[in-house]
């Protein structure tokens, strides 16, 4: 059985609430583990927040496209935006061993994506940023 989600989000802060409710509904409809839905939500929140914060001179009018395909316990997805070229995977990794004084603020969002997804890729294609990801949900 294959389930699909096709969601177009406005590139503004309303996107996060809409993402959360849409993923919750998708998770319930497809009997996905609560924790997997939460991880997916967190990763997409971080990627979308990055896009809204950095991709545009002015985010008004821009859209972010999310496509998900669930097949045989494997969730594959793609997040697309038309902002300036930006590879979020190049963000420096946080120093998890630093003490409180040395620990720098920031860099955690992409760390979550790299930790919680099984596979993440970025490419710039036809004027669009495309982040693809995979997460194995069972087996």
């Amino acid at each position: 059985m294959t389930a699909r989600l096709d969601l177009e989000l406005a590139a503004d802060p309303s996107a996060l609430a809409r993402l959360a409710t849409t993923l919750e509904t998708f998770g319930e409809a497809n009997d996905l583990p609560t924790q997997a839905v939460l991880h997916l939500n967190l990763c997409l929140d971080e990627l979308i927040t990055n896009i809204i914060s950095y991709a545009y001179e002015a985010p008004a009018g821009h859209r972010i496209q999310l496509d998900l395909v669930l097949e045989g316990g494997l969730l594959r997805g793609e997040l697309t935006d038309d902002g300036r070229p930006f590879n979020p995977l190049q963000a420096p990794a946080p120093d998890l061993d630093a003490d409180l004084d040395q620990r720098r603020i920031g860099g955690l969002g992409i760390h979550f994506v790299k930790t919680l997804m099984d596979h993440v890729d970025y490419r710039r294609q036809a004027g669009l940023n495309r982040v693809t990801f995979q997460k194995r949900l069972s087996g």
Partner: protein
Amino acid sequence: MNLRTDTSGDIEILIPSGRLDSTTAPTFEKALLAYFEGRPARVLVDFDELEYISSAGLRVILMAAKRAKQSGGGFVLCGLHENIREVFEISGFLSILNVSDGRDEALARLAPT
């Protein structure tokens, strides 16, 4: 996100509920960091009613912990549910922050010795 506040003696208690993400973190930041302005405050954040936290919320927590240390105050977290705790763990925050299970234990940790 909603924010409630409480006090116990001179310990300030902040209780966020709902979702702490990049849209709600600025409100949380303003409320939390205000405690540390010009004084060594002792602050407890009780996460018992929090459903979700992203890196935007963790950023505020880290800033507050740094300010508390620099000013000689105190900063303790409690009530982290499993999904919130997991995000703290992945962030490496459990080893650099003061995290207690329940509110009583957290208050005891903040009490003057």
